[in-house]
């Protein structure tokens, strides 16, 4: 896929970014309430402008440690609003338009991470993210 440069929001600790059109709001000091019997990837729910949204720990989902004192970035994907808990925001930047193909770099890579040239952050597909098997349980 070729075209105009995409505006993205790079996340900390780096290497990942979200498309600006997928963003809803960045919330600092979000109150996350855990939910019993939730699926493996969901850590709880948060209040987004009066609506309850499910919250996913992006660090865990990327195979790292659980995130503490991070920022909650509310996104929308596949018509569903949910939150991604990350360590912080590196800043806004513009990325060249990608071909839209998902490139797997290894067997551990998920489908919701798009390929990116070296030195650039990989975009997170908020729609495919919801298809991750670790998020398929009850919310």
């Amino acid at each position, binding site marked *: 896929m070729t075209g105009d440069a995409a*505006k993205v*929001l790079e996340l900390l600790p780096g290497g990942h970014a979200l498309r*600006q*059109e997928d*963003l*809803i*709001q*960045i919330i*600092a000091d979000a109150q996350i309430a855990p939910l019993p019997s939730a699926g493996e990837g969901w850590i709880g729910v948060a209040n987004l402008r009066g609506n309850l949204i499910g919250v996913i720990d992006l660090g865990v989902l990327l195979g790292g440690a659980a995130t503490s004192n991070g*920022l909650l970035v509310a996104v929308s994907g596949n018509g569903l609003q949910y939150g991604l808990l990350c360590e912080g*925001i590196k800043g*806004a930047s513009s990325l060249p338009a990608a071909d839209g193909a998902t490139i797997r770099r290894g067997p551990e890579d998920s489908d919701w991470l798009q390929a990116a040239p070296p030195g650039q952050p990989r975009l997170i597909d908020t729609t495919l993210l919801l298809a991750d098997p670790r998020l398929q349980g009850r919310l």
Partner: protein
Amino acid sequence: MADKEREAAPPDPGPDQGLRVTRWLTARRRLPWLLVGIAVLPTLAVALFAWSQGTRIVTRDDGQAVRDAAISAMVAIDAEIERTEQVTISLASGAAIKAMTGAAADDRLTSEVNAFAPVYRQAILVGLNGRVVGIARRPPGSAGRIATRNFRGKQTGKPSWFKIALRNASNGAQKIVTQTIEPRPLIGRLEGTGSAPLTPISAIAVMRRGKAVGVVAVFLNWEASATIGRRILSGQAQRKESEQQLTYVVDKDGQLLLGPRGEVDLRADLIRDPVVKEMIDSEVAGYDTDLQHSTALPGDIVAGYAPMDQRIGTPPLEWTSIVTEPTSAALTDSTYLREVLIVATLVVALLASLLALVVSRALTRRAERLRASSIEVEDGAKAMQTSAEASRERARLTEERAEQQLASMEQMTELVAEMGIRGDHIAEAAAMVAEQAGRASTASEEGLRAAAEVGRTMSEIDERVSGISTEIANLATQTAQIGEIVQTVSSIADQSNLLAFNATIEAAKAGEQGAGFAVVAEEVRMLAERSKRAAAQIRSILGEIDKAARDTERSSEQGIASVRTGRERAERAAATIDQLATANEEAEAATRGIAEAAPAQVEALGKIAESTRTAAQRAEELRSESHESSKSAAELDHLAERLRELATTLTNE
């Protein structure tokens, strides 16, 4: 020199005459035989003379004459008694006894007389050798007896006497009749056995070896038996003769019985008359335990008084009858005298021999000691020569030392003079030192003030550094407060950044209408970024300020410690300077004392110099005297040589 001195010595006097006689006597033991001859020959002459005289004594029968005199005296006394038939005796007063005895009344005699005076008409005091040795009493009725009591006392050799006290019953006149009798050694001699026709009333003095040793009282009853009682005068004689004492008893026929002591019981065998028995009992009861009855010894010389008693018709006692065989007794006396003379001669010869031997030995020892003394004198003379040599040597050494001392005195005089000059220098130097000490004292006072000023300055520095430390602590507190503010600013910047992101998201959602708002949001986000960076820089600066403040605080603490150490050192320096000032003052005082004493020292040195000169004069005199001592030692050497020659002469002779 020595020969001249020997020529000047006195001549040798040689051995004296006494020494020659002593040597002659001690040589060949002549002296013992000489002394024996001198002692024995006169003794033999006396013995021969005594032998012949003893014969003459027997021939003359002086004992008979004495006996006659005694009998005459006794007869006179008896006649006096007869003439005072009606007179009774009272000797109750001590004065009467003193009148009789010539001495103070003896308690014992007084009690005796007082006890017997009412009973006996007469009392006869018996004196021997000037002392009252007994009392003889005659009871009334002419049938009584004469009892004797002996009293202890020394015999003085004075004539014995009898004193009879009489008192006329009609007119109370008292009379004392005194008759003396001189005891002679040969009045009579009592043989070992025999009899003597004694009168009923008798008093007999017992003699032994020419000394009166007792008085015999005869207790005689013309119808019964009689006893002879005797008292020993001397306890010593009694002890000596105790084993040989015999008992004499005169029976009613006047026979004198003789037996060993204790064989005859007087009261049981002889006293049959109740009156006599009573008398004897009372007598024995009144006598002391040392009363000895009839204890004359064979060979005792007996003298006595035998008054005639006409009333009982007893013929007068013939004294010759005591001596059973007068002729043989006289011969016995002569034999006894010869025996005595022979024994005495032998004893004298023996004693003379012993004396000669003792004297000879003493003289021989003396001669030996004299010879030994001569050797010692010779040795002493040699030692004296040695001593003279030593004295001469010492005199020479003394002279040399006197010369050395003289030289030393001269050196000492020079040294004293030099010391006087140095004393002046010392005084000047002491004055200079005192001045320097005064300056040092002034400097010490200035140093003391400077040290005090340093101490004050140190205290001010301490206060100021302490203030700086407080200010730095306040600065650290304020820096911490600024850090907190900066943290707030940084947080606001973060929130502004997020707010700008959210504004950008919202502007993007607004599309074309939100483009301007997106620009503003971007400007806000950039401003937030700048604020955050500025806050980070401020935080960095604050960190550096905090580090600098901590370093400053640490330096301040070190500075405070250093200031305090400096202040303490300043205080110690002040104390040291103070001590130095005190020492300087003392040194100044001492130096001034030295400077003041220096003239006195110079004066004393002058006196020492004077004394040294005097000592030098005396050393000169000592040298002269040593020279004279050397001369005297030479003379002493000469005398010692002469003395040694004399001792050699004595030793060889």
